[in-house]
């Protein structure tokens, strides 16, 4: 599916309210019930959707506010993953999790949360899932002979869930693979796992690769050059990359390797509280337009907005939308 010209979206997560962090910790320490926490999740998700709509985004997500972190939301849902429930002190920590036997096939329950999102917005929607490569870097493998075999198994299970999401109406699904940047040598099998994951999934599929956003800071540094040419084998329609913090140097790689994807262009730095002006955002988009035509360009933050205070996240989204509008007007759109 083709992208809409300079359409705007979040990468996935929205600002996590401090009160929700406290509630998640209270739940972890058995001070509140799962029902109470779920009610708070519902309220927080509705507020996140509303903020995205008011900021003027074309595509909205549920803000990923139900997730403890990008790993545990999936690790606790994947069949056959054993979780040590006492292994984390804070909700944001990773559980100690392991696979010790062959993983069975079973639904993950993502559809229910997608339907909640769908019920509260008329905008186009995006669902993000953590990719198999990132998951195998955090879930201990004590059964499969190789990391690749483990990743492909996870991809096979999650593929069914993605198909269910499409049946439920999901049009845009994003796969997050930040760990590629830490383990570039894994990329060939990482891409094979992606292709298993998206096999037969009839949606606009994007792949988000960044340099990490754990605790709101990068986990690695480097150049996206490591992605090429292996990434060209990925059966995705869009690649979503961070450029606001790191600069636009790597944009030329898309041209150099004649990448067939549309680009989700990171125009907002999520690792600083300084809010970009619309003019800065517009300039970043113009730089990308020198490489790709507008119908192959979407606009988004560098990564999730999870760690930013709500007022900063909201202001950044507003600036992003305004910056995109500036360029659209220049293009006569």
């Amino acid at each position, binding site marked *: 599916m083709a992208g809409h010209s300079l359409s705007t979206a979040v990468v996935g997560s929205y600002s996590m309210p*401090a009160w929700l*962090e*406290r509630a998640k*910790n209270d739940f972890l320490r058995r001070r509140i019930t799962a029902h109470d926490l779920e009610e708070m999740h519902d309220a927080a998700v509705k507020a996140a959707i509303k903020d995205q709509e008011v900021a003027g985004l074309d595509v909205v997500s549920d803000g990923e506010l139900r997730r403890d972190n990008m790993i545990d939301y999936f690790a606790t849902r994947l069949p056959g993953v054993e979780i040590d429930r006492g292994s984390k*002190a*804070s909700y944001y920590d*990773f559980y100690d999790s392991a696979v010790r036997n062959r993983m069975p096939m079973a639904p993950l329950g993502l559809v229910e949360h997608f339907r909640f999102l769908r019920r509260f917005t008329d905008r186009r929607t995006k669902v993000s899932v953590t990719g198999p490569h990132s998951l195998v870097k*955090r879930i201990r493998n004590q059964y499969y002979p190789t990391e690749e075999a483990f990743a492909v198994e996870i991809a096979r299970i999650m593929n069914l869930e993605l198909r269910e999401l499409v049946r439920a109406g999901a049009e845009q699904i994003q796969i997050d693979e930040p760990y590629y940047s830490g383990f570039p040598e894994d990329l060939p099998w990482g891409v094979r796992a992606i292709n298993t994951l998206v096999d037969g999934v009839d949606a606009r599929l994007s792949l988000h690769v960044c*340099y*990490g956003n*754990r*605790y*709101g*800071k*990068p*986990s*690695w*540094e*480097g150049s996206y050059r490591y992605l090429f040419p292996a990434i060209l084998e990925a059966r995705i329609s869009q690649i979503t990359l961070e450029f606001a913090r790191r600069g636009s140097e790597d944009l030329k790689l898309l041209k150099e390797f004649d990448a067939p994807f549309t680009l989700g262009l990171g125009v907002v730095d999520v*690792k*600083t509280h300084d809010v970009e002006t619309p003019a800065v955002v517009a300039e970043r988009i113009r730089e990308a337009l020198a490489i790709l035509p507008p119908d192959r360009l979407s606009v988004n933050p560098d990564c999730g907005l999870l760690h930013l205070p709500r007022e900063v996240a909201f202001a950044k989204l507003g600036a992003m939308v305004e910056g995109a509008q500036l360029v659209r007007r220049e293009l006569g759109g």
Partner: protein
Amino acid sequence: MIIHLNYLPKAGETGAGDVLGALFALLDQGRLDPEMLPHLRLHLDWIQYKANFREPVTVRRAADARGERMALAELAVDLRRTSREHVVDDLASALASMGTAPSGSAAASSRAGSPDHGDRVVVDDWVPLGDSSIWQFNRLFWQRLADWERQSGRGFEAALPSGRSDANDPAAVADAVADFWTLLVELDKRGQLPAEIFALEIGVGSGTRANLWLDRFKAIDEARATGFYPRLRFLLADYSLPTLDRAMSAVAAHRDVVSMIATDALNPLRALSFLRYKILYVHLTNVYDNLPVDELVRRDGQLYLVETRAYVPGPLARTIATAHGIGTDQLRPTIARLLETGPDLFGDRERGVAFWRAVWDGLCLEERLRHLEGTADVPLPPGLHGDDLDELLANAPADIRFHISRGAVESFVNTVPLLHPRGYLQVQDIFVATMDEYRQGFRGPGKLDGSVVNWVNGALLRAVGARTGYDVHFAPFRYRPASRTSILYTTLRE
């Protein structure tokens, strides 16, 4: 009355029995109201620093949010500085200043901290400890270090309790360099070593440590032919330009790889934001213990913020005033001018420094305990969240007085964003690693020759570190026997 006994005196020193005997004598003489006893706490603490801001017997009253006196009262006795002969008089005088009337009476409900607090010249208003003028004195010291040292006749490191700084221990420096060099090799192997290798020293002292570090790094690099030294960008950061100048002279042999930058240790990010996520190694020695700190007290489940008021005891105030040709009533404004303009205030720097040193020598802190409704009322430094404090308190002793090391926390959260994703922070300082250790005594503030020293709440830093993506560890400083220094180091939190 509850007695907190944290110090067993040596033979010949005043003992707990002497203090109790003195209190009973005062009770018999009608100079101690028996109705006070249920709310009185007697603290016989180990006082970390012999030189500090307390008189041998200190009294602390609790006050509510409006400043009205509450029932809780504390008597703190420094057994090392109280003699058997004077303990009755010292206690009597302290109790008199506390007010011995029963709770609810007119005297008891008078405003805590009213001017009627004995023979002293008050220098401050009541403020949380972190806002006390002692921190202005501290800042003045580092800004006008050379003036102070010229008159004292010794360098600030010689004035430390151990007579030298653990920062400059050659074996410790060698180990620090080896760790760093190993990191560089690992990054290099993975092709992740940046072209420029940034290292940062915050709080440079005399520059001795930086020079030792650079000598060692260059030697290892040359011996192993790794070629890292020419790529090194070593930054000396300090808020005192004279100190930076002195340190730059010390590292003259490494001038090609060293730069200096005026930086507030509370917010290195402000001056160095262009290096966000780029610095592989940040080191500080004895900086955190010199940054502003607040103190919290929990008694009977209630939380209190320690408020202080700086003063100079009356006899000393009169001596200083006479020696400098001013009236005692002019002492407070003269001190304010000293803190604002520095020691040139009399038009004669030597005389100004003498005045400064005399005031510092005599400066004391009066304390009161401001009641807080809960942790939501605690003035938290940036980076510390209320639920972190709740968790710390949930696992702390029920009765506790501890530091909110707000300067250290602020510095920490404004430093770690400078770290490269594989970089680390190392801090040599005096840390209280667990809240339980606060049971064991009073950890400051202490008074060094011109500056303030304070133990740093490591448990707090551990909580703040976890929130910012770092595990914070403490290792004992094993290079000098009986050293109280620890080494804080960060590792990445997955």
